[in-house]
């Protein structure tokens, strides 16, 4: 955002963020880099639980006349690694990836494969990304039920569950 270089402007601009439950992670106020119109560029990094709150903060700021020049968004994704091995085919792996992708808020974000030298099976390392632990849990349960049905060996991290 760009703020006028007069006292109180920064505090005024930050106020709606906390009012709508946003968590301010950092504020960079660069007076040495004033724009040609004499405005001070300010970068605010904040965290909100839901997108809706973020939109409310934005519209509040706009209605206050704060000039917002750029909005960058990064959805924070949690990750979990699982390994499956056994008589697994590419088609079955594809199916797993598809079905996890169909769940709300989860996807398989990384896949590594190794063909087994003995037995002709395959090992796959999957990284599940999800918006919350809950969505990761449901993705894991889905993979677990597929693994059980098809008799794949499924391994997850010892730090999860239990």
């Amino acid at each position, binding site marked *: 955002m760009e703020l006028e270089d007069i006292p109180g402007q920064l505090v005024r601009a930050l106020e709606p963020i906390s009012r709508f439950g946003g968590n301010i992670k950092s504020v960079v106020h660069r007076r040495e880099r004033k724009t040609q119109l004499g405005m001070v560029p300010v970068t605010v990094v904040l965290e909100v639980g839901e997108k809706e709150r973020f939109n409310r903060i934005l519209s509040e700021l706009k209605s206050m006349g704060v000039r917002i020049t750029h909005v960058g968004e990064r959805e924070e994704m949690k990750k979990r690694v699982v390994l499956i091995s056994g008589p697994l085919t590419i088609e079955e792996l594809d199916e797993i990836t598809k079905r996890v992708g169909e769940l709300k808020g989860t996807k398989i974000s990384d896949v590594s494969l190794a063909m087994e030298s003995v037995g002709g099976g395959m090992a796959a390392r999957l990284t599940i990304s999800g918006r919350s632990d809950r969505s990761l849990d449901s993705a894991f349960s889905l993979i677990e039920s597929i693994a059980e049905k098809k008799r794949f060996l499924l391994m997850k*991290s010892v730090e999860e569950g239990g």
Partner: protein
Amino acid sequence: MKLILVGFGNVGRGLVRALVQKRNFFLKEHGMSCEIVAVVDGHGAVVDENGLSFRRLLRMVEEGNLIGSERKLGVEIIREVDADVVFELTPTNIKTGEPGLTHIKTAMRTGKSVITSNKGPLVVAFRELEELAKKRGVEFRYSASVGGAVPVIGLAKRILMGNEVLAIRGVLNGTTNYILTRMAQEDAPFDIVLKEAQELGIAEKDPSLDIQGIDTACKITILANSVLGIDAKLGEVKTKGISGVTPEAIRLAREAGFTVKLVGIASKRTLEVGPKLVPIHHPLAVSGTLNAVTFEVDLAREITISGFGAGPRETSSSLLGDLVDVYQAISQRG
């Protein structure tokens, strides 16, 4: 303290050797003197109510059998011979718990305290034995049944007494840990490494209890009962072994910063055993035949201990720790 030893295999012989070697230490440090008044195995028994001589005991250890034994059963000796403590060290039978179960019950019913390394009776009748010991006013210890030399139960039940234990995660089987470690080091398949372990005497001729995860499941059952106070049965532990683990899977795990271990987990929510991904720098990532256990507790958060999970000398560490403990408990009672 008058002691009866039932079972004269590796563990029994290791215990006799350590007891004889360290008799002065126990007298000096703990004021405890011990005589072994009877040793019984599957073939017979040697008895001397005044204590078997150390020379004879050591000779029996060297020769691996009982010299000059009479044909008597463990139950008879336990019933007839006067003693303070019975060491029950016979082989584990996870289905019936026998003959250990009968030995332990007979000992308790005749007013003798019991120390055991035998998982069978604990898995089959944990509650019953704890209650019987209480009813008969005798001591009952089983530190050596989980973790070999690693003081898993003592740490949880004594030293961490101010904490509530929320979960226990452990690498509790040296054989499978050795196999998984070698598979990772050599990029070798399970079958070949298993053969190597059998040649080295690390894996038994019939390794199924170890590799199917059943041995670990027994230990999880014992820990759930003794530490978490859950009335858990072996059949309730969801158990998977390591025979399906491949070197390729281990390599993929390593590339993501994990190693593969056979881990047993006990908590109020889950009882399970299976191959798990353990972060390489996690304290449970011990290699070779080592055991390690992490306790998740309410105050101290996480405590991990590791050490040797098997071996006659190592196991005698836990058995003798229990003996001093029983001695102190009996002395306090006066």
